């Protein structure tokens, strides 16, 4: 008797999850169709590629911070960390003349290290994530300026560096749709992290920590160590974001980055991940990042005045999350 009930509700849960993703996707489609109707220029291949390109950096950052948000934390340092990773890459590639691969490793390593530090502030020193990463945000912002002497580092001497983001492996195969590598990287990372979240121990503890950290601890799991690992992985992903932006600008711009964290977090929440932890998907985050990019680009293509762009963006963020809420309440 009870078993059958249990089953049906579990089924319900699963149906709910699929529905949710489909519906978030629906918001995206509604936006795309709306903009296409309003201005036929929106639907050009070149503009769609521009949107994807614009989503790539924010998307990668959002994927990184999704991990942390699922643990019930938050990371405000991702914007300036992205910049700091770009700067460190500039240092090894341009100043030290290291080969490209070293630059890639540096970006990811710097991100992971910084993530590890944030993680230990949170896990070991019990500093609330908001404050720990706010502090890290300021520290990393300052460090980028200090290391570069406040001047951008250009990658002109590293041929091929700009291809990391701007080149197109896909275009090599399908010339009609030259998806930039930056976008390819976004999707590869999304796939990878999605897999980690759903299939691996790290993923399991990410959800478990966000769901009930005390229970995880009482189960004899070294919760602190796992939390630090999760922050480090998130940092490494942000490092990839640093590579992407540096490659796109063919330079490391030391003052960039502040404010990017809020955009990334907005993408995560629009994608249905709960800020109270325990729940979230990478697919959702990806869709969230695309919604943000479509919105920004679409309003610009429609030549909406910039101050109105701000208002409309704010309103749509609220509406998108509200729609998500309604959806979720509907079955319960």
């Amino acid at each position, binding site marked *: *008797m*009870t*078993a059958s*009930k*249990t*089953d*049906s*509700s*579990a089924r319900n*849960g699963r149906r709910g999850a699929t529905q949710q993703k489909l519906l978030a996707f629906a918001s995206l489609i509604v936006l795309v169709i709306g903009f296409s109707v309003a201005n036929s220029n929106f639907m050009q291949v070149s503009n769609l590629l521009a949107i994807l390109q614009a989503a790539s950096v924010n998307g990668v950052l959002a994927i990184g911070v999704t991990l942390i948000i699922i643990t019930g934390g938050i990371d405000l340092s991702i914007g300036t960390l992205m910049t700091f990773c770009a700067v460190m890459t500039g240092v090894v590639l341009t100043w030290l003349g290291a080969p490209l691969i070293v630059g890639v490793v540096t970006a990811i390593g710097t991100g992971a290290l910084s993530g590890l530090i944030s993680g230990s502030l949170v896990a070991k020193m019990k500093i609330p994530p908001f404050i720990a990463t706010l502090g890290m945000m300021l520290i990393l912002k300052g460090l980028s300026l200090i290391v570069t002497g406040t001047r951008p580092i250009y990658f002109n001497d590293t041929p091929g560096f700009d291809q990391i983001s701007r080149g197109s492996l896909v275009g090599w195969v399908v010339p009609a749709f030259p998806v930039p590598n930056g976008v390819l990287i976004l999707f590869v990372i999304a796939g990878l992290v999605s897999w980690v979240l759903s*299939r*691996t*121990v*790290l993923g*399991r503890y990410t*959800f*478990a920590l*966000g*769901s*009930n950290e*005390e*229970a*995880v*601890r*009482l*189960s*004899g*799991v*070294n919760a602190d160590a796992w939390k630090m690992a999760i922050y480090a992985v998130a940092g490494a992903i942000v490092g990839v974001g640093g590579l992407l932006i540096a490659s796109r600008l063919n330079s490391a711009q030391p003052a960039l980055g502040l404010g990017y964290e809020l955009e990334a977090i907005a993408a995560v929440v629009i994608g249905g991940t709960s800020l109270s932890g*325990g*729940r979230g998907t990478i697919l959702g985050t990806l869709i969230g990042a695309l919604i943000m990019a479509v919105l920004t680009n679409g309003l610009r293509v429609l030549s909406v005045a910039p101050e109105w762009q701000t208002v409309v963006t704010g309103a749509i963020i609220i509406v998108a999350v509200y729609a998500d809420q309604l959806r979720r309440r509907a079955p319960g």
Partner: protein
Amino acid sequence: MTATTDLIRMEQIDKRFPGVHALKSVDFDLRAGEVHALMGENGAGKSTLMKCLSGIYQPTSGRIVIDGNEVQLSTPKAAQDLGIGIIHQELELMRDLTVAQNIWIGREPRLSFGRIDEAKLNADAAALFEGMNVSIDPKAPVSSLTIARQQMVEIAKALSFRSRVLIMDEPTAALTEAEIEELFTIIRRLRSEGVGIIYISHKMDEIRRISDRVTVMRDGSYVGTVQAADTPISQIISMMVGRDVDDEPVEVPDLSRAEVALEVRHLSRGRDVKDVTFSLRKGEILGFAGLMGAGRTELARAIFGAEPPDEGEIVVHGHHMTIRSPSDAVAAGIGYLSEDRKHYGLALGLDVRANIALASLGRYADRIGRIDEHRLAGIAQDYIRTLNIRTPHDQQQVRFLSGGNQQKVVIAKWLLRDCDILIFDEPTRGIDVGAKSEIYRLLNDLAARGKAIIVISSELPEVLRLSHRIAVMCEGRLTGILPGGAAQEEIMALATQREGMTAE
């Protein structure tokens, strides 16, 4: 059975919290292959002692000896590694994870690249439930389970450790007879396999049925250890409370002329409450019995507006009421004490006084919203005295109270609100014998003063002890209403009656 060797010896354990001396040089020992019951009033220190043994708290002083060696249990993991498993009094589950994921957290079967073998995980959990003779879907999210089923998951998790020592802190508080029987079967099997079991419960009959020895604590001190078989329950109780507890049976008053306080007609909500109709008179105590998941809690929440009903009418004192939220319900004079105090009953971070006042603040504030703290303090202290709430003072945060004392705070909150119609969902969950009879007396008094009361309880003796009439539910349907003195068999028949006949 190597009955003579001590598996565990705790000697002179002392534990101090700020303002509370929770354990005063307590001694305790456990042998392999025995069930050792730990008894004591709410706040006596039972959970604290067990937390010292499972690595959650470190004793302020004292020794813990396992297999003859003194040990330091500095983390839960350290205790686990020594073969000590615990089922916590307060549920500690990860609500967003599935049942199987909860059980094997930290011990996931792995494949290469840190992948989890999800199939094995679910199969292992299913096997575990099979051994326990319960049917829970390992893939169901824990948040979709009732408290009782969550409790079964906790038990399954503790069993999965195959510990040499298993601590059960009130495992049956949320269970009904059938599950308790299953649990006892499991306990007996474990005992025969040489596992040492520490069993904490406030249900006196269970002590007789399952335990070999009984250790009693009072006010953080060790009182004594006796053999369960040859010690009368009354002696154990007087060791616990330091006096005798008398328990007079219910006398059903004649209520046929009393005004009808609450009428519920054709109330339905989702799959959990189906077409429920009943009425309740002033001065009446209506007991609700049923198996786990029968829908009693859902019915109460629907009446209270916590989960507004899909269909049906609620009539209070002859007036139709539209109740869409708890504030509507309270305004209509209906109060509801939830079965889940931690999630729905208490603001754990606030102090005792604030929690007691939570539902009645408006009454103690002047026009500009200023609270009369002085009066509230007096009232809080009154309740602390009448309900015998163990707390250093009325400004202690509720989170630091023992489970049973937390429950008393919730009761105090509703007593202070003074609603005409009161729904008590598992009011004595986790409450000690002494306090239990206090609460029974209290409910009788309230009824005598003209309150209309619904008591939902999974303990049949409690329903029988309290109710003037007994409503029985099965699968969301009201299968029948019996008079106060009904026999247990009658109730069980209705509780398992799948095809519902119309009530009354």
